[in-house]
């Protein structure tokens, strides 16, 4: 098997993992199962980053999403007592599901149309170039240093806000 067909096979496997995980994350009755679906999707997307010759992005995907975000969501499932017999287990109305399908299909379909018509017009390359970590680090501290500093401010404000909300809750009790 040459590398090209191996890449195609891997893409199909990752696409199945991403979509299966995504569907599981959206329709599962139990929130813990939905979270497992989200983790599957995250790993599938990390695999796609590897296929696109971006190994640093794949590592960051696993480190940030699976290591931080999923753990936070798991804590919120635990702390809000969202059991499998709880809120999510109640049946949904068919009209609401139909409207949700329409509302999701319109923007996704329009964007897919644009992506399809533009993908033949762009200068798409077949073999992506790999960007090394020191190139990324230099770009982060030279050209894009403002964005780098701003994202740390945003993270700090979010953490301070979370702590403040926690204090507010305790004081009002």
């Amino acid at each position, binding site marked *: 098997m040459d590398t090209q067909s191996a890449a195609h096979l891997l893409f199909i496997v990752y696409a199945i993992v991403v979509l299966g995980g995504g569907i599981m994350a959206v329709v599962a009755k139990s929130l813990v199962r939905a979270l497992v679906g989200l983790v599957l999707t995250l790993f599938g997307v990390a695999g796609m980053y590897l296929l696109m010759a971006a190994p640093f992005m794949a590592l960051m995907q696993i480190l940030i999403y699976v290591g931080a975000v999923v753990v936070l969501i798991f804590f919120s499932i635990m702390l809000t007592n969202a059991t499998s017999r709880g809120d999510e287990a109640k049946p949904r109305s068919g009209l609401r599901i139909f409207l949700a399908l329409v509302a999701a299909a319109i923007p*996704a379909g329009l964007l897919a149309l644009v*992506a399809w018509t533009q993908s033949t017009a762009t200068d798409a390359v077949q073999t992506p170039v790999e960007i090394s970590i020191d190139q990324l680090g230099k770009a982060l501290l030279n050209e894009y240093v403002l964005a780098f500093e701003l994202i740390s401010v945003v993270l700090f404000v979010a953490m301070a806000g979370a702590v403040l909300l926690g204090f507010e809750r305790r004081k009002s009790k």
Partner: protein
Amino acid sequence: MSEPLFLYQAVALLLLFLGIFGIITRKSLVGMIIAVELMLNGAGLAIVASGQLTGAPADLAQLSSLLVMGLAAAEATLVLAIILVVAKRFGTVETDRVSELEG
């Protein structure tokens, strides 16, 4: 498989589709963040694909996607705190019952 860029973007758009569908049909706030994370992943995938598979600067695309991940982490922190406050005050995180506004 002549258009790898479109295939990656199709996967990203399907994640957007699932995210919007989930955010409308989920009944609890925690289910809604899971759907939002799906959409943010689709965004990151589309950004990296358009940087890696076209002539656009690839380092800019990877750094933008890292920015999206940082925002996702910040958003998850804040949303967790808000969900905890809502759960404490209303006793539930079901969206249909958390509908009172306090002036």
